[in-house]
Protein backbone atom coordinates (compact mmCIF):
# COMPACT_ATOMS: atom_id res chain seq x y z
CA UNK A 1 0.00 0.00 0.00
CA UNK A 2 1.38 3.42 -0.92
CA UNK A 3 1.77 5.96 1.83
CA UNK A 4 -0.52 9.01 1.85
CA UNK A 5 1.32 12.21 0.97
CA UNK A 6 0.48 15.08 3.28
CA UNK A 7 2.56 18.07 2.17
CA UNK A 8 0.91 21.38 1.34
CA UNK A 9 0.30 22.50 -2.21
CA UNK A 10 1.28 25.85 -3.71
CA UNK A 11 -1.30 27.42 -5.98
CA UNK A 12 -0.70 30.52 -8.03
CA UNK A 13 -3.71 32.74 -8.54
CA UNK A 14 -3.43 35.57 -11.00
CA UNK A 15 -2.18 38.02 -12.12
CA UNK A 16 -4.70 37.33 -14.86
CA UNK A 17 -7.41 35.69 -12.83
CA UNK A 18 -10.90 36.93 -13.68
CA UNK A 19 -11.92 37.57 -10.10
CA UNK A 20 -8.88 39.39 -8.78
CA UNK A 21 -10.28 42.67 -10.10
CA UNK A 22 -7.36 43.51 -12.29
CA UNK A 23 -3.83 42.29 -11.99
CA UNK A 24 -3.38 41.03 -8.45
CA UNK A 25 -1.34 37.90 -7.93
CA UNK A 26 -1.74 35.64 -4.94
CA UNK A 27 0.50 32.69 -4.13
CA UNK A 28 -1.50 30.43 -1.85
CA UNK A 29 -0.27 27.54 0.27
CA UNK A 30 -3.05 25.00 0.61
CA UNK A 31 -3.50 22.17 3.03
CA UNK A 32 -6.28 20.28 1.32
CA UNK A 33 -8.77 23.07 0.73
CA UNK A 34 -7.66 25.17 3.69
CA UNK A 35 -5.44 28.16 3.03
CA UNK A 36 -2.25 28.03 5.10
CA UNK A 37 -0.57 31.17 3.83
CA UNK A 38 -1.01 33.82 1.17
CA UNK A 39 1.57 36.02 -0.50
CA UNK A 40 0.09 38.89 -2.51
CA UNK A 41 2.20 40.43 -5.25
CA UNK A 42 1.27 43.83 -6.63
CA UNK A 43 2.82 46.34 -8.96
CA UNK A 44 1.70 45.00 -12.33
CA UNK A 45 -0.24 48.20 -12.98
CA UNK A 46 2.37 50.65 -11.68
CA UNK A 47 2.41 53.58 -14.05
CA UNK A 48 4.42 56.12 -12.07
CA UNK A 49 1.63 58.68 -11.84
CA UNK A 50 3.22 60.32 -8.80
CA UNK A 51 6.45 60.84 -10.71
CA UNK A 52 4.61 62.17 -13.75
CA UNK A 53 2.68 64.59 -11.56
CA UNK A 54 5.91 66.25 -10.44
CA UNK A 55 6.49 67.42 -13.99
CA UNK A 56 3.00 68.84 -14.51
CA UNK A 57 1.43 72.13 -13.51
CA UNK A 58 -1.00 71.92 -10.61
CA UNK A 59 -4.15 71.99 -12.71
CA UNK A 60 -2.73 69.36 -15.07
CA UNK A 61 -2.39 66.88 -12.19
CA UNK A 62 -6.18 66.57 -11.89
CA UNK A 63 -6.63 64.20 -14.86
CA UNK A 64 -3.64 62.17 -13.68
CA UNK A 65 -4.88 61.53 -10.15
CA UNK A 66 -8.33 60.68 -11.49
CA UNK A 67 -6.81 57.73 -13.26
CA UNK A 68 -5.40 56.22 -10.07
CA UNK A 69 -8.58 54.88 -8.52
CA UNK A 70 -10.56 54.67 -11.72
CA UNK A 71 -13.88 53.97 -10.01
CA UNK A 72 -13.77 57.06 -7.84
CA UNK A 73 -12.33 59.72 -10.09
CA UNK A 74 -14.26 62.55 -8.40
CA UNK A 75 -12.89 61.62 -4.95
CA UNK A 76 -9.34 61.61 -6.27
CA UNK A 77 -9.62 65.00 -7.91
CA UNK A 78 -11.45 66.38 -4.86
CA UNK A 79 -8.67 65.16 -2.53
CA UNK A 80 -6.02 66.79 -4.68
CA UNK A 81 -7.99 70.00 -5.18
CA UNK A 82 -8.67 70.36 -1.44
CA UNK A 83 -5.00 69.92 -0.56
CA UNK A 84 -3.86 72.49 -3.11
CA UNK A 85 -6.62 74.86 -2.04
CA UNK A 86 -5.42 74.46 1.56
CA UNK A 87 -1.94 75.49 0.46
CA UNK A 88 -3.32 78.43 -1.52
CA UNK A 89 -5.59 79.47 1.34
CA UNK A 90 -8.52 79.37 -1.05
CA UNK A 91 -12.19 79.21 -0.03
CA UNK A 92 -14.54 77.93 -2.68
CA UNK A 93 -18.13 79.22 -2.71
CA UNK A 94 -20.94 77.37 -0.95
CA UNK A 95 -22.53 76.32 -4.25
CA UNK A 96 -19.30 74.74 -5.50
CA UNK A 97 -18.98 72.77 -2.27
CA UNK A 98 -22.52 71.46 -2.65
CA UNK A 99 -21.96 70.45 -6.27
CA UNK A 100 -18.77 68.67 -5.23
CA UNK A 101 -20.64 66.79 -2.49
CA UNK A 102 -23.34 65.79 -4.97
CA UNK A 103 -20.83 64.51 -7.52
CA UNK A 104 -18.74 62.62 -4.97
CA UNK A 105 -21.79 60.92 -3.49
CA UNK A 106 -23.03 59.94 -6.97
CA UNK A 107 -19.55 58.56 -7.56
CA UNK A 108 -19.78 56.53 -4.37
CA UNK A 109 -23.03 54.94 -5.56
CA UNK A 110 -21.42 54.29 -8.93
CA UNK A 111 -18.40 52.60 -7.36
CA UNK A 112 -20.52 50.52 -4.98
CA UNK A 113 -22.69 49.39 -7.90
CA UNK A 114 -19.63 48.10 -9.74
CA UNK A 115 -18.44 46.41 -6.56
CA UNK A 116 -21.85 44.84 -5.92
CA UNK A 117 -22.16 43.52 -9.45
CA UNK A 118 -18.71 41.99 -9.65
CA UNK A 119 -18.79 40.65 -6.10
CA UNK A 120 -22.17 39.03 -6.63
CA UNK A 121 -21.11 37.56 -9.94
CA UNK A 122 -18.01 36.00 -8.43
CA UNK A 123 -20.17 34.20 -5.91
CA UNK A 124 -22.43 32.82 -8.62
CA UNK A 125 -25.19 35.45 -8.59
CA UNK A 126 -24.61 36.44 -12.19
CA UNK A 127 -27.82 38.36 -12.79
CA UNK A 128 -27.03 41.09 -10.22
CA UNK A 129 -24.12 42.24 -12.35
CA UNK A 130 -26.42 43.00 -15.27
CA UNK A 131 -28.76 45.02 -13.05
CA UNK A 132 -26.11 47.07 -11.25
CA UNK A 133 -24.29 47.91 -14.46
CA UNK A 134 -27.61 49.03 -15.94
CA UNK A 135 -28.05 51.56 -13.12
CA UNK A 136 -24.39 52.53 -13.14
CA UNK A 137 -24.84 53.57 -16.76
CA UNK A 138 -27.29 56.26 -15.61
CA UNK A 139 -24.69 57.78 -13.29
CA UNK A 140 -22.06 57.67 -16.03
CA UNK A 141 -24.56 59.50 -18.22
CA UNK A 142 -24.58 62.33 -15.66
CA UNK A 143 -20.78 62.48 -15.86
CA UNK A 144 -21.15 62.69 -19.61
CA UNK A 145 -23.68 65.46 -19.26
CA UNK A 146 -21.45 67.67 -17.11
CA UNK A 147 -18.11 66.98 -18.73
CA UNK A 148 -18.50 64.95 -21.90
CA UNK A 149 -16.42 62.23 -20.32
CA UNK A 150 -17.87 59.23 -18.52
CA UNK A 151 -15.10 57.74 -16.42
CA UNK A 152 -12.66 60.62 -15.87
CA UNK A 153 -14.63 63.85 -16.06
CA UNK A 154 -11.91 66.17 -14.60
CA UNK A 155 -14.81 68.37 -13.60
CA UNK A 156 -13.59 69.20 -10.09
CA UNK A 157 -10.66 71.57 -10.48
CA UNK A 158 -8.38 73.46 -8.16
CA UNK A 159 -10.37 76.59 -7.34
CA UNK A 160 -13.79 75.21 -8.14
CA UNK A 161 -15.27 73.43 -11.12
CA UNK A 162 -14.46 73.36 -14.79
CA UNK A 163 -17.59 75.24 -15.79
CA UNK A 164 -21.15 75.77 -14.67
CA UNK A 165 -23.71 72.99 -14.60
CA UNK A 166 -25.35 72.28 -17.96
CA UNK A 167 -29.08 72.93 -18.48
CA UNK A 168 -31.18 69.96 -17.46
CA UNK A 169 -28.72 68.78 -14.82
CA UNK A 170 -31.18 68.90 -11.92
CA UNK A 171 -33.84 66.92 -13.79
CA UNK A 172 -31.31 64.30 -14.89
CA UNK A 173 -29.98 63.79 -11.36
CA UNK A 174 -33.47 63.75 -9.87
CA UNK A 175 -34.55 61.05 -12.32
CA UNK A 176 -31.65 58.84 -11.21
CA UNK A 177 -32.25 59.55 -7.51
CA UNK A 178 -35.93 58.65 -7.86
CA UNK A 179 -35.07 55.41 -9.58
CA UNK A 180 -32.26 54.14 -7.35
CA UNK A 181 -34.01 53.39 -4.01
CA UNK A 182 -36.33 50.88 -5.67
CA UNK A 183 -33.41 49.28 -7.45
CA UNK A 184 -31.45 48.90 -4.23
CA UNK A 185 -34.49 47.12 -2.77
CA UNK A 186 -34.30 44.75 -5.72
CA UNK A 187 -30.61 44.04 -5.13
CA UNK A 188 -31.36 43.29 -1.52
CA UNK A 189 -34.12 40.91 -2.57
CA UNK A 190 -31.60 39.14 -4.78
CA UNK A 191 -28.76 38.88 -2.25
CA UNK A 192 -29.57 39.83 1.33
CA UNK A 193 -32.33 37.25 1.61
CA UNK A 194 -30.60 34.75 -0.64
CA UNK A 195 -29.74 31.62 1.35
CA UNK A 196 -26.78 30.69 -0.87
CA UNK A 197 -25.29 34.19 -0.72
CA UNK A 198 -25.64 34.28 3.06
CA UNK A 199 -24.00 30.89 3.45
CA UNK A 200 -21.09 31.97 1.30
CA UNK A 201 -20.51 35.22 3.17
CA UNK A 202 -21.63 34.87 6.82
CA UNK A 203 -18.61 34.35 9.07
CA UNK A 204 -16.22 34.39 6.09
CA UNK A 205 -13.18 36.63 5.95
CA UNK A 206 -13.55 38.00 9.46
CA UNK A 207 -11.23 40.82 10.56
CA UNK A 208 -11.39 42.26 14.06
CA UNK A 209 -11.72 45.98 14.70
CA UNK A 210 -8.25 46.08 16.29
CA UNK A 211 -6.66 44.41 13.27
CA UNK A 212 -8.56 46.64 10.87
CA UNK A 213 -7.17 49.73 12.62
CA UNK A 214 -3.66 48.34 12.91
CA UNK A 215 -3.68 47.67 9.16
CA UNK A 216 -5.19 51.15 8.55
CA UNK A 217 -8.29 49.83 6.77
CA UNK A 218 -10.29 52.92 7.73
CA UNK A 219 -13.35 52.93 5.52
CA UNK A 220 -16.08 50.39 4.76
CA UNK A 221 -13.87 47.49 5.92
CA UNK A 222 -13.31 48.92 9.41
CA UNK A 223 -16.94 50.01 9.58
CA UNK A 224 -17.97 46.44 8.82
CA UNK A 225 -15.94 45.46 11.90
CA UNK A 226 -17.66 48.06 14.06
CA UNK A 227 -15.35 51.09 13.88
CA UNK A 228 -17.67 54.05 13.39
CA UNK A 229 -15.00 56.23 11.80
CA UNK A 230 -15.91 58.21 8.71
CA UNK A 231 -13.87 61.15 7.43
CA UNK A 232 -17.06 62.99 6.54
CA UNK A 233 -18.08 62.99 10.22
CA UNK A 234 -14.65 63.13 11.90
CA UNK A 235 -12.96 65.75 9.71
CA UNK A 236 -15.74 67.36 7.66
CA UNK A 237 -14.76 68.97 4.37
CA UNK A 238 -16.80 70.68 1.64
CA UNK A 239 -19.53 71.42 4.17
CA UNK A 240 -20.39 67.83 5.14
CA UNK A 241 -21.03 69.04 8.68
CA UNK A 242 -24.19 70.75 7.43
CA UNK A 243 -25.65 67.57 5.94
CA UNK A 244 -27.85 65.08 7.72
CA UNK A 245 -26.66 61.50 7.21
CA UNK A 246 -25.81 58.36 9.17
CA UNK A 247 -22.67 56.24 9.12
CA UNK A 248 -23.69 52.58 8.81
CA UNK A 249 -21.64 50.26 11.00
CA UNK A 250 -21.49 46.46 11.09
CA UNK A 251 -20.69 44.23 14.03
CA UNK A 252 -19.13 40.96 12.91
CA UNK A 253 -16.50 42.13 10.42
CA UNK A 254 -17.25 39.39 7.90
CA UNK A 255 -17.98 39.60 4.18
CA UNK A 256 -21.71 39.86 4.78
CA UNK A 257 -21.38 42.83 7.14
CA UNK A 258 -19.14 44.64 4.71
CA UNK A 259 -21.82 44.00 2.08
CA UNK A 260 -24.55 45.42 4.34
CA UNK A 261 -22.43 48.48 5.18
CA UNK A 262 -21.96 49.30 1.50
CA UNK A 263 -25.63 48.76 0.68
CA UNK A 264 -26.60 51.15 3.48
CA UNK A 265 -23.95 53.61 2.33
CA UNK A 266 -25.64 53.75 -1.05
CA UNK A 267 -28.92 54.69 0.66
CA UNK A 268 -27.17 57.38 2.72
CA UNK A 269 -25.52 58.69 -0.42
CA UNK A 270 -28.90 59.02 -2.11
CA UNK A 271 -30.13 61.03 0.89
CA UNK A 272 -27.01 63.22 0.71
CA UNK A 273 -27.50 63.76 -3.02
CA UNK A 274 -31.10 64.83 -2.47
CA UNK A 275 -30.05 67.37 0.18
CA UNK A 276 -27.27 68.71 -2.03
CA UNK A 277 -29.54 68.96 -5.05
CA UNK A 278 -32.03 71.03 -3.05
CA UNK A 279 -29.29 73.49 -2.14
CA UNK A 280 -27.79 73.97 -5.59
CA UNK A 281 -29.37 76.80 -7.58
CA UNK A 282 -29.42 75.99 -11.31
CA UNK A 283 -27.22 78.99 -12.11
CA UNK A 284 -24.57 80.61 -9.98
CA UNK A 285 -20.92 80.65 -9.01
CA UNK A 286 -18.92 77.67 -10.20
CA UNK A 287 -15.43 78.71 -9.10
CA UNK A 288 -13.72 80.79 -6.47
CA UNK A 289 -13.31 84.48 -7.14
CA UNK A 290 -9.54 84.30 -7.30
CA UNK A 291 -7.77 85.66 -10.37
CA UNK A 292 -4.58 83.74 -9.49
CA UNK A 293 -6.19 80.38 -10.18
CA UNK A 294 -9.47 80.81 -12.03
CA UNK A 295 -9.36 82.22 -15.56
CA UNK A 296 -11.78 85.04 -16.37
CA UNK A 297 -15.02 84.26 -18.24
CA UNK A 298 -14.67 83.85 -21.98
CA UNK A 299 -16.70 86.93 -22.97
CA UNK A 300 -14.26 89.11 -21.01
CA UNK A 301 -11.26 87.30 -22.54
CA UNK A 302 -12.53 88.20 -26.00
CA UNK A 303 -13.10 91.86 -25.19
CA UNK A 304 -10.58 93.00 -22.52
CA UNK A 305 -6.82 92.97 -22.79
CA UNK A 306 -6.18 92.33 -19.07
CA UNK A 307 -8.51 89.36 -19.09
CA UNK A 308 -6.78 87.96 -22.15
CA UNK A 309 -3.37 88.28 -20.48
CA UNK A 310 -4.64 86.65 -17.33
CA UNK A 311 -6.21 83.82 -19.30
CA UNK A 312 -2.98 83.30 -21.22
CA UNK A 313 -0.87 83.28 -18.05
CA UNK A 314 -3.04 80.73 -16.29
CA UNK A 315 -3.09 78.35 -19.23
CA UNK A 316 0.57 78.70 -20.21
CA UNK A 317 2.37 79.02 -16.87
CA UNK A 318 -0.22 77.79 -14.42
CA UNK A 319 -0.28 79.34 -10.97
CA UNK A 320 2.22 79.47 -8.16
CA UNK A 321 1.46 77.69 -4.90
CA UNK A 322 3.18 78.91 -1.71
CA UNK A 323 5.73 76.49 -0.23
CA UNK A 324 4.36 74.04 2.29
CA UNK A 325 2.66 70.72 2.63
CA UNK A 326 -0.96 69.69 3.00
CA UNK A 327 -2.95 66.51 3.37
CA UNK A 328 -6.71 66.86 3.37
CA UNK A 329 -8.46 63.51 3.80
CA UNK A 330 -11.68 62.74 1.98
CA UNK A 331 -13.94 59.72 2.31
CA UNK A 332 -13.71 57.78 -0.92
CA UNK A 333 -15.78 54.70 -1.77
CA UNK A 334 -12.97 52.47 -0.54
CA UNK A 335 -12.11 54.40 2.57
CA UNK A 336 -9.95 57.35 3.44
CA UNK A 337 -8.51 58.94 0.33
CA UNK A 338 -6.39 61.97 0.42
CA UNK A 339 -3.58 63.62 -1.37
CA UNK A 340 -0.37 64.71 0.32
CA UNK A 341 0.88 67.64 -1.73
CA UNK A 342 4.22 69.33 -1.17
CA UNK A 343 4.98 72.59 -2.93
CA UNK A 344 8.35 74.32 -3.17
CA UNK A 345 6.74 77.59 -4.20
CA UNK A 346 6.71 76.88 -7.92
CA UNK A 347 3.98 76.18 -10.44
CA UNK A 348 4.47 72.42 -10.30
CA UNK A 349 4.01 70.17 -7.27
CA UNK A 350 7.23 68.98 -5.64
CA UNK A 351 5.60 65.78 -4.44
CA UNK A 352 2.15 64.25 -4.85
CA UNK A 353 1.20 61.19 -2.84
CA UNK A 354 -2.25 59.69 -2.94
CA UNK A 355 -3.26 57.56 0.01
CA UNK A 356 -4.24 54.20 -1.36
CA UNK A 357 -6.90 52.35 0.67
CA UNK A 358 -6.84 49.42 -1.76
CA UNK A 359 -3.13 48.79 -1.27
CA UNK A 360 -3.55 48.62 2.49
CA UNK A 361 -6.48 46.24 2.02
CA UNK A 362 -4.27 43.94 -0.07
CA UNK A 363 -1.66 44.02 2.68
CA UNK A 364 -4.22 42.76 5.21
CA UNK A 365 -5.58 40.02 2.94
CA UNK A 366 -3.81 37.28 4.88
CA UNK A 367 -5.69 38.25 8.04
CA UNK A 368 -8.96 37.49 6.27
CA UNK A 369 -7.94 34.54 4.09
CA UNK A 370 -5.59 32.33 6.12
CA UNK A 371 -7.45 29.54 7.87
CA UNK A 372 -10.40 29.74 5.50
CA UNK A 373 -11.29 27.68 2.46
CA UNK A 374 -9.87 28.37 -0.98
CA UNK A 375 -13.37 29.01 -2.36
CA UNK A 376 -13.76 31.83 0.16
CA UNK A 377 -10.68 33.64 -1.16
CA UNK A 378 -12.85 34.91 -4.01
CA UNK A 379 -15.53 36.12 -1.61
CA UNK A 380 -12.95 37.97 0.50
CA UNK A 381 -11.20 39.66 -2.43
CA UNK A 382 -14.58 40.80 -3.67
CA UNK A 383 -15.55 42.13 -0.26
CA UNK A 384 -12.49 44.34 0.24
CA UNK A 385 -13.27 46.02 -3.11
CA UNK A 386 -9.78 46.60 -4.42
CA UNK A 387 -9.15 48.69 -7.50
CA UNK A 388 -5.76 47.79 -8.86
CA UNK A 389 -5.23 51.20 -10.39
CA UNK A 390 -5.35 52.55 -6.86
CA UNK A 391 -3.09 49.79 -5.47
CA UNK A 392 -0.28 50.29 -7.96
CA UNK A 393 -0.75 53.92 -9.03
Amino acid at each position, binding site marked *: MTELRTETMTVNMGPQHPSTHGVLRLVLQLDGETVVSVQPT*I*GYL*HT*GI*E*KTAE*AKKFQQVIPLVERMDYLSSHSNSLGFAL*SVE*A*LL*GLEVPRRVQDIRVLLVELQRINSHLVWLGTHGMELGAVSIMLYTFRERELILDINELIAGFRMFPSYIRVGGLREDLPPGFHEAVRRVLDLLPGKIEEYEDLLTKNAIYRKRTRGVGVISAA*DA*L*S*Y*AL*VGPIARGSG*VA*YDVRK*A*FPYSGYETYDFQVPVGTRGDVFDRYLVRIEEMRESIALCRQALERIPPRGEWAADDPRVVPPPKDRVYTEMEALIQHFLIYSQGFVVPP*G*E*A*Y*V*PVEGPRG*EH*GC*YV*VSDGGNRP*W*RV*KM*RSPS*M*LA*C*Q*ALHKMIVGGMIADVIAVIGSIDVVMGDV*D*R
Partner: protein
Amino acid sequence: MPDAAAIVAALAPAVPGARLEDGQALDQPTIVVPREHLVPACRALRDQPGLRFDVLADMTAVDRWPGEPRFEVVYHLLSTSAPARLRLEVALDRDDAHVPTVRGVWESAGWLEREVWDLFGVVFDGHGDLRRLLMPEDWDGHPLRKDYPVQIRMKPKVYAPLQVTEAEFHAQIEKDRTVRGGTGLERGREKKG
Protein backbone atom coordinates in the same frame (compact mmCIF):
# COMPACT_ATOMS: atom_id res chain seq x y z
CA MET B 1 -7.99 68.87 17.53
CA PRO B 2 -5.00 69.51 19.83
CA ASP B 3 -2.23 71.63 18.36
CA ALA B 4 1.37 70.54 17.87
CA ALA B 5 2.65 72.25 21.02
CA ALA B 6 0.14 70.38 23.21
CA ILE B 7 1.11 67.05 21.67
CA VAL B 8 4.81 67.83 22.10
CA ALA B 9 4.17 68.62 25.78
CA ALA B 10 2.24 65.37 26.28
CA LEU B 11 4.89 63.38 24.48
CA ALA B 12 7.97 64.87 26.15
CA PRO B 13 8.02 62.62 29.28
CA ALA B 14 7.90 59.47 27.12
CA VAL B 15 10.97 60.41 25.08
CA PRO B 16 13.37 62.14 27.48
CA GLY B 17 16.03 64.25 25.86
CA ALA B 18 14.42 64.30 22.43
CA ARG B 19 14.21 67.57 20.53
CA LEU B 20 10.66 67.61 19.24
CA GLU B 21 9.92 70.59 17.04
CA ASP B 22 6.68 72.03 15.80
CA GLY B 23 6.69 71.57 12.02
CA GLN B 24 4.48 74.67 11.45
CA ALA B 25 2.14 73.14 8.90
CA LEU B 26 -1.12 74.85 7.98
CA ASP B 27 -3.41 71.86 7.67
CA GLN B 28 -2.70 69.66 10.69
CA PRO B 29 -0.32 69.49 13.68
CA THR B 30 3.14 68.46 12.58
CA ILE B 31 6.07 67.33 14.71
CA VAL B 32 9.65 66.86 13.61
CA VAL B 33 11.12 63.88 15.43
CA PRO B 34 14.81 62.92 15.57
CA ARG B 35 15.42 59.52 14.07
CA GLU B 36 16.74 57.85 17.23
CA HIS B 37 13.59 58.78 19.17
CA LEU B 38 11.12 57.76 16.48
CA VAL B 39 10.06 54.34 17.75
CA PRO B 40 9.60 55.31 21.44
CA ALA B 41 7.70 58.40 20.33
CA CYS B 42 5.42 56.35 18.08
CA ARG B 43 4.79 53.82 20.83
CA ALA B 44 3.85 56.61 23.22
CA LEU B 45 1.63 58.26 20.61
CA ARG B 46 -0.22 54.98 20.15
CA ASP B 47 -0.59 53.92 23.78
CA GLN B 48 -0.61 57.05 25.92
CA PRO B 49 -4.08 58.01 27.16
CA GLY B 50 -5.10 61.33 25.67
CA LEU B 51 -3.14 60.67 22.48
CA ARG B 52 -4.13 57.20 21.21
CA PHE B 53 -3.09 57.51 17.61
CA ASP B 54 -4.24 54.01 16.73
CA VAL B 55 -3.86 54.24 12.93
CA LEU B 56 -0.85 54.89 10.75
CA ALA B 57 -2.99 56.17 7.91
CA ASP B 58 -0.28 56.83 5.38
CA MET B 59 3.41 57.18 5.03
CA THR B 60 5.66 58.57 2.37
CA ALA B 61 8.89 60.43 1.80
CA VAL B 62 9.93 63.67 0.16
CA ASP B 63 13.22 64.10 -1.66
CA ARG B 64 14.58 67.64 -1.20
CA TRP B 65 17.51 67.10 -3.55
CA PRO B 66 19.81 68.99 -3.97
CA GLY B 67 18.95 70.48 -0.56
CA GLU B 68 20.06 69.07 2.77
CA PRO B 69 18.80 67.20 4.76
CA ARG B 70 17.83 65.41 1.63
CA PHE B 71 14.99 63.09 2.69
CA GLU B 72 11.97 63.65 4.86
CA VAL B 73 10.06 60.55 5.88
CA VAL B 74 6.47 61.59 6.60
CA TYR B 75 4.03 59.65 8.77
CA HIS B 76 0.33 60.53 8.83
CA LEU B 77 -1.20 59.37 12.09
CA LEU B 78 -4.88 59.23 12.92
CA SER B 79 -6.73 58.81 16.17
CA THR B 80 -10.16 57.39 15.42
CA SER B 81 -11.42 57.87 18.97
CA ALA B 82 -10.58 61.57 19.47
CA PRO B 83 -10.69 62.17 16.39
CA ALA B 84 -7.36 63.81 15.71
CA ARG B 85 -4.61 63.78 13.13
CA LEU B 86 -0.88 64.25 13.44
CA ARG B 87 1.99 64.34 11.00
CA LEU B 88 5.44 63.14 12.02
CA GLU B 89 8.50 64.04 10.03
CA VAL B 90 11.97 62.57 10.20
CA ALA B 91 14.75 64.36 8.34
CA LEU B 92 17.58 62.26 6.87
CA ASP B 93 20.92 63.13 5.38
CA ARG B 94 21.90 62.15 1.87
CA ASP B 95 24.53 59.60 2.87
CA ASP B 96 22.71 58.15 5.82
CA ALA B 97 19.14 57.40 4.70
CA HIS B 98 18.27 54.96 7.47
CA VAL B 99 15.21 54.99 9.73
CA PRO B 100 14.16 52.43 12.34
CA THR B 101 11.03 50.58 11.33
CA VAL B 102 7.68 51.27 13.04
CA ARG B 103 6.28 47.96 11.90
CA GLY B 104 6.20 46.83 15.53
CA VAL B 105 3.87 49.70 16.37
CA TRP B 106 1.45 49.66 13.44
CA GLU B 107 1.09 46.66 11.10
CA SER B 108 0.23 48.92 8.17
CA ALA B 109 3.84 50.13 8.11
CA GLY B 110 4.89 46.83 6.48
CA TRP B 111 3.99 47.66 2.89
CA LEU B 112 4.17 51.43 3.32
CA GLU B 113 7.84 51.16 4.32
CA ARG B 114 8.48 48.75 1.48
CA GLU B 115 6.99 51.29 -0.92
CA VAL B 116 9.17 54.10 0.42
CA TRP B 117 12.26 51.92 0.16
CA ASP B 118 11.29 50.89 -3.36
CA LEU B 119 10.68 54.41 -4.64
CA PHE B 120 13.15 56.46 -2.56
CA GLY B 121 15.81 54.04 -1.34
CA VAL B 122 15.32 54.94 2.30
CA VAL B 123 16.31 51.90 4.39
CA PHE B 124 14.10 50.85 7.28
CA ASP B 125 16.30 49.10 9.85
CA GLY B 126 14.77 46.01 11.37
CA HIS B 127 11.94 45.77 8.84
CA GLY B 128 12.76 42.16 7.98
CA ASP B 129 11.02 42.05 4.61
CA LEU B 130 12.36 45.05 2.71
CA ARG B 131 11.67 44.00 -0.87
CA ARG B 132 10.49 46.01 -3.85
CA LEU B 133 6.74 46.51 -3.83
CA LEU B 134 5.69 48.40 -6.96
CA MET B 135 8.75 48.18 -9.22
CA PRO B 136 9.96 44.88 -10.69
CA GLU B 137 12.33 42.90 -8.47
CA ASP B 138 15.31 43.39 -10.80
CA TRP B 139 14.88 47.17 -11.17
CA ASP B 140 17.89 49.44 -10.72
CA GLY B 141 17.56 52.66 -8.77
CA HIS B 142 14.73 54.37 -6.93
CA PRO B 143 12.46 56.23 -9.33
CA LEU B 144 10.94 58.91 -7.09
CA ARG B 145 14.35 60.35 -6.23
CA LYS B 146 14.76 63.73 -7.83
CA ASP B 147 18.09 62.82 -9.44
CA TYR B 148 16.64 59.73 -11.07
CA PRO B 149 16.95 60.08 -14.85
CA VAL B 150 13.38 60.37 -16.04
CA GLN B 151 13.61 60.02 -19.78
CA ILE B 152 16.12 57.26 -20.39
CA ARG B 153 16.73 56.35 -23.98
CA MET B 154 17.34 52.62 -23.85
CA LYS B 155 19.36 51.12 -26.68
CA PRO B 156 16.92 49.07 -28.73
CA LYS B 157 17.61 45.39 -28.44
CA VAL B 158 18.64 43.99 -31.82
CA TYR B 159 18.45 40.36 -32.65
CA ALA B 160 20.78 39.43 -35.51
CA PRO B 161 18.91 37.59 -38.23
CA LEU B 162 19.81 33.97 -38.74
CA GLN B 163 22.93 33.88 -40.90
CA VAL B 164 22.56 31.23 -43.58
CA THR B 165 24.30 31.13 -46.93
CA GLU B 166 22.39 30.27 -50.05
CA ALA B 167 24.11 26.89 -50.30
CA GLU B 168 23.14 26.03 -46.69
CA PHE B 169 19.58 27.14 -47.35
CA HIS B 170 19.21 24.82 -50.32
CA ALA B 171 20.95 22.00 -48.45
CA GLN B 172 18.42 22.31 -45.61
CA ILE B 173 15.50 22.17 -48.01
CA GLU B 174 17.00 19.15 -49.70
CA LYS B 175 17.49 17.46 -46.32
CA ASP B 176 13.91 18.21 -45.38
CA ARG B 177 12.70 16.75 -48.64
CA THR B 178 14.59 13.49 -48.20
CA VAL B 179 13.31 13.09 -44.64
CA ARG B 180 9.68 13.61 -45.58
CA GLY B 181 9.98 11.88 -48.91
CA GLY B 182 9.19 14.68 -51.31
CA THR B 183 7.57 18.12 -50.95
CA GLY B 184 3.91 18.76 -50.56
CA LEU B 185 3.84 20.25 -54.04
CA GLU B 186 4.91 17.04 -55.64
CA ARG B 187 2.32 15.07 -53.72
CA GLY B 188 -0.33 17.43 -54.96
CA ARG B 189 0.77 16.89 -58.53
CA GLU B 190 0.70 13.14 -58.12
CA LYS B 191 -2.87 13.27 -56.89
CA LYS B 192 -3.90 15.34 -59.86
CA GLY B 193 -2.19 13.01 -62.29
